[in-house]
């Protein structure tokens, strides 16, 4: 989310509202929001993991701990020191852009821990979603 923060206003100016969903508690979500100085980004929680399941995101200890995630995790920890894990540690995430009519114009599924779409890709896809 720290990577997203500098692009929030750009996304809003394009006409796309960013949201972050995690699997911790509401209090943990607020703490996380403050920790990464992203109070302007709406953070929501899904402790039942219903949206994760409906979106088709992976839940796997093997994938989460895959060696390919170690280097990304190390870089991330250096850039944004991680505190305790708040939420389901084996639940991987993803990203979607959904238009007002419910059409999903972009979908990205994390295959291993630390596997994220590039911010530039998200901004580009946001522009396409609005232009479509």
């Amino acid at each position, binding site marked *: 989310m720290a990577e997203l923060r500098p692009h929030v206003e750009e996304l809003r100016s394009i006409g796309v509202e960013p949201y972050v*969903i995690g699997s911790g508690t509401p209090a943990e979500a607020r703490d996380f929001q403050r920790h990464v100085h992203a109070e302007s980004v709406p953070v929501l929680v899904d402790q039942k993991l219903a949206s994760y399941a409906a979106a088709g995101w992976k839940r796997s200890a093997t994938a989460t701990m895959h060696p390919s995630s170690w280097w990304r995790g190390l870089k991330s920890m250096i850039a944004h020191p991680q*505190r305790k*894990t708040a939420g389901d*540690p084996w639940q991987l995430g993803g990203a979607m852009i959904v238009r007002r009519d419910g059409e999903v114009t972009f979908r990205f599924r994390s295959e291993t821990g630390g596997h994220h779409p590039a911010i530039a890709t998200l901004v580009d896809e946001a522009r396409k*979603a609005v232009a479509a």
Partner: protein
Amino acid sequence: MTTRASDDLAAAELRDTDDRPRAMRDLWRDRPALVLWVRHFG
């Protein structure tokens, strides 16, 4: 090629940081939404 958000996804119930309920479908009701699901808060 685009797909449509499933009914299950649209109906998923979320909660905000004040513990108020929020339906997933509300996220894209007024404008397109970029939704990022994170692995955990940390």
